[in-house]
């Protein structure tokens, strides 16, 4: 143990560390000891049947769900415990939701500038130019004045990515980012995620986009029943999974 963990208690290079994470909803255990380390600029894909705990695990990573025990660390800094400014820590963790969760009363620009102005206390002009830069990265600078109701699902999700990206987070969490989209709109969102990855973002993604996982992920984690069943490079997980549960799960997608 001592040799693999530095003085902060994490593998020295991990950007996001999940350690011995346990979580129950009432009497129902959902996470039964998750250990996961995401390295800088790595894109880790989490697969698993529904009810496997993958979304709960992701939501624990920025404490939208409170773990029962275990630790979450961002670059070695703990998210829980006395003296931790959670709001400050959350600025380092971008999150993209399945249902976008854009603010319907604000324009695309307003959605992106809100946290820049209220959390980072940027003056309006600076916040707006940062927001336009983020919207440009997702290909939507020409939609800055549109309200969420005037945008397609794919565009809304790209604005949501820009909103998270604008805070220049250390790591980004994606919770089934394409599950609520019409099939023809999925591609645009995946393209944006690929761009974000190419710019060096550290990403933890819960998703059912197998093909994308195979193409773009650095590592695939298979979860079932609240534990990590197996993990490895996509070619290994998809090509030669060692666990029976993984094979069963994947066979349903191969048809």
């Amino acid at each position, binding site marked *: 143990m001592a040799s693999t963990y530095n003085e902060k208690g994490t593998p020295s290079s991990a950007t996001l560390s999940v350690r011995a994470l346990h979580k129950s909803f009432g009497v129902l255990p959902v996470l039964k000891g998750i250990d996961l380390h995401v390295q800088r600029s790595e894109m880790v894909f989490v697969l698993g049947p529904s009810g496997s705990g993958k979304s709960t695990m992701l939501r624990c990573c*920025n404490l*939208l769900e409170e773990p029962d025990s275990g630790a979450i660390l961002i670059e070695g800094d703990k998210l829980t415990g006395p003296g931790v400014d959670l*709001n*400050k*820590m*959350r*600025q380092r*963790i*971008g*999150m993209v*939701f399945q*249902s976008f*969760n*854009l*603010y*319907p*009363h604000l324009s695309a620009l307003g959605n992106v500038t*809100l*946290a820049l102005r*209220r*959390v980072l206390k940027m003056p309006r002009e600076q916040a707006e130019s940062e927001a336009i830069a983020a919207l440009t990265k997702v290909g939507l600078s020409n939609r800055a004045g549109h309200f969420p109701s005037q945008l397609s699902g794919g565009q809304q999700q790209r604005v*949501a990515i820009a*909103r*998270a990206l604008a*805070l220049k987070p250390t790591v980004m969490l994606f919770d089934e980012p394409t599950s609520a989209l019409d099939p023809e709109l999925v591609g645009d969102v995946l393209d944006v995620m690929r761009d974000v990855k190419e710019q060096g973002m550290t990403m933890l993604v819960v998703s059912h986009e197998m093909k994308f996982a195979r193409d773009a992920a650095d590592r695939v984690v298979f979860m079932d029943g609240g534990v990590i069943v197996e993990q490895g490079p996509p070619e290994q997980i998809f090509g030669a999974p060692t666990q029976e549960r993984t094979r069963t799960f994947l066979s349903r997608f191969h048809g």
Partner: protein
Amino acid sequence: MEAIIQQFFNIEIMIKALPLVLKGLGVTLLICAVVIPLGALGGLFAAIASVSKNRAVRWTAIGFVDLFRAIPPLVLLIFIYAGLPFAGIQISPFVAVAVGFFLNNSAYFAEVFRAGILSVPKGQTEAARSTGMTQGQTLFWVTLPQAVRNVLPDLLSNVVEVVKLTSLASVVSLGEMLHAAGLVRSLTYNASPLVLAAGLYLVLLWPLIRLISRFERKIDT
């Protein structure tokens, strides 16, 4: 027919009553100007408190709202105006009315705001908190703007109710519009001043009522 017109729509008496009734209208508007903003603000705070995670805060707010929704405003007014002097507190009719309506009004506004806050999906709060916004910032910039928008017709309906409710102030001899009209009626033995007052309420409230149905249609579609 002749008798009804003579008794209720007597133009001559209306003209005589007009100066006093208009003065009463001024008092009505003044009460509204004090009571509506205060009540809305009180209601907003009570609503925020009633969805608090802190159990003591939440139950205090819910207790306040339940209590003042259950007490008839007429009883509340009389109690404040006629009862408090026994406790050594002398207050003017206007202050009694302001305090009484503030309490009643806050309770009703609180229920409307509470419904609005609960109508905002949980994902909105999660998105805001995930960007590092505090609970207060999330409430102010994300939840409340959507909450108010969702219940705007109900808020305005409440305003209409309050304007009409101010006529209760006559029981503590505050010279608002209905009190003034009633005064002229008892002097002339003719009900036309009351009809005049009703007409003025209509003129005052009709634009607001139209506005409410417009909002309601807009939200429906």
